[in-house]
């Protein structure tokens, strides 16, 4: 059975596992931390625990020492509304809240559990319970096994030595967990950024700690490219995920980091890692739909939605809501379109803007806006309108801040009119300094 403890046993103990601005832990220190707290770990054995909103470094330490000893671990990010905590605690049957005080493991009891008290070493295949990003609705809890989470993780420890992964995603969410696992399973170093720091400070930390591999959302990458500090990053692996990666950002990254291997990843909390695309073009080859991929099968339904069937179906909703159709496929909620041998993402099914009866996908308009080459970032949303129901509105960030706004607006709208139907062209364009992103690094989408 594969688990986190087994994975890290073989990693040379002097390698650094985690590092942030002020602390670092080698792999042997992780082992020491476990020994030091073995008495308490024994007490928690077989229970269901929650890590609730603790700092990122603390989270990875707790996860590393407790995996395989407890039955389930619930991850509760800081941005989850307080009123949902009890609901999630009940849904997951949480026994204890765990945290660290310095290097001492502590816990608060929610509901005691029956300690089976086996003297032999019972090793659990600990379930990791991860909330969905809930961009448009209340996050759902999805339970994963270590097996399902690591099915496409590279575990070459020799190769892993040369990688220093930057963690900028929220560690409590699927995307952050992927970066954590990629780093630890291959015995690499994880550089943990502080989510409260500015982009410039974050990049400074990554540069100082010699980050050479970074995974982030396209929105995050656009912000990275706007900082002067980004010149100093020396990257050999770049991955994008969590949002649609358009040609514009892929090319901009290629230009800035010509030696990096760039890929965009399709993943979701429900599906797990779907597939990655490394040809540096947006969308993915049509062949992916016809059995070219090993771990998953895909289909497009008649209403244009992408459905994915992972070969490993370890994941499920904790609420027992149905996740799969009769054939074992999960509805991703992502609208796609097949064109010239390639499949392109149009946006979320739930996010469409209704302009006088015509549906507009905000992401489609955002992609078009970015392809004008004038913009660093774009956010498209609906504004209510008495005549049309809704109108398309866009907040945009200019590449060249000194550009005349009137001229920029004229050129953007001209381009949009030439490349899109009239109802999709933004009715209002607002020039802003920067766009807000969520803790998961995705563009913050607000229903106005």
């Amino acid at each position, binding site marked *: 059975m594969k688990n986190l403890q087994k994975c890290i046993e073989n990693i040379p103990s002097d390698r650094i596992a985690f590092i942030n601005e002020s602390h670092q832990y080698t792999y042997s220190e992780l082992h020491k931390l476990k020994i030091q707290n073995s008495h308490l770990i024994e007490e928690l054995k077989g229970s269901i625990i929650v890590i609730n909103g603790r700092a990122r470094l603390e989270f990875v330490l707790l996860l590393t020492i407790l995996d395989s000893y407890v039955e389930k671990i619930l991850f509760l990010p800081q941005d989850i509304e307080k009123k949902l905590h009890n609901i999630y605690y009940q849904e997951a049957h949480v026994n204890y809240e765990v945290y660290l005080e310095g290097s001492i493991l502590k816990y608060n009891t929610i509901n005691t559990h029956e300690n089976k008290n086996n003297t032999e070493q019972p090793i659990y295949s600990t379930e990791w319970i991860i909330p969905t990003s809930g961009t448009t609705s209340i996050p759902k809890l999805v339970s994963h096994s270590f097996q399902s989470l690591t099915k496409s993780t590279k575990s070459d420890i020799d190769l892993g030595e040369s990688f220093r992964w930057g963690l900028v995603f929220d560690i409590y969410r699927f995307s952050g967990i992927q970066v954590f696992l990629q780093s630890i399973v291959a015995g690499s170093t994880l550089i943990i950024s502080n989510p409260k720091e500015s982009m410039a400070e974050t990049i400074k930390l990554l540069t100082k700690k010699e980050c050479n591999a970074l995974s982030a959302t396209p929105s995050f990458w656009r912000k990275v490219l706007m900082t002067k500090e980004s010149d100093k990053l020396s990257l050999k692996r770049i991955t994008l995920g969590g949002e649609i990666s358009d040609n514009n950002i892929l090319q901009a990254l290629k230009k800035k980091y010509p030696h990096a291997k760039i890929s965009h990843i399709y993943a979701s909390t429900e599906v797990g890692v779907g597939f990655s695309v490394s040809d540096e073009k947006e969308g993915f080859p049509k062949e992916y739909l016809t059995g070219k991929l090993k771990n998953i099968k895909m289909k497009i339904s008649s209403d244009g939605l992408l459905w994915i069937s992972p070969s490993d179906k370890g994941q499920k909703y904790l609420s027992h809501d149905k996740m799969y159709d009769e054939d074992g496929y999960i509805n991703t909620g992502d609208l796609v379109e097949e064109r010239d041998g390639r499949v392109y993402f149009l946006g979320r099914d739930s996010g469409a803007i209704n*302009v*006088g009866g015509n549906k507009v996908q905000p992401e489609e308009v955002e992609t078009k806006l970015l392809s004008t080459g004038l913009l660093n970032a774009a956010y498209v949303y609906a*504004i209510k*309108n*008495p*005549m*049309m129901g809704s*109108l398309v*509105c866009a907040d945009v960030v200019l590449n060249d801040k000194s550009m005349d706004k009137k001229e920029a*607006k*004229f050129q953007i*709208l001209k381009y949009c*009119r030439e490349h899109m139907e*009239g*109802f999709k*062209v933004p*009715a*209002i364009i607002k020039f802003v300094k920067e766009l807000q992103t969520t803790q998961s690094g995705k563009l913050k989408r607000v229903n106005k």
Partner: protein
Amino acid sequence: MNIKETIKETYLEVVEQTGNELLVPKLIDSVVLLESGLDSLGFAILVATLDEKLEFDPFTMMDEPFYPSTFGEFVEIYEKMNPNK
């Protein structure tokens, strides 16, 4: 600039923005809106853009719905409902 001037200017901007053409020689009070060159989407954009500039939308403030048919009536609604006058 008074409201009427702002509306005129914005009107012409939206005509251009939406790729339409002004179908009348001049924007005068008697111009029939639906024959002036803007379609319904264009009008929606005009009202939304004016909302941005003037910071009010008279059509959402009115107790009873009223649909102007001429440019003069359109301007009159804005002048009448102007909260800043």
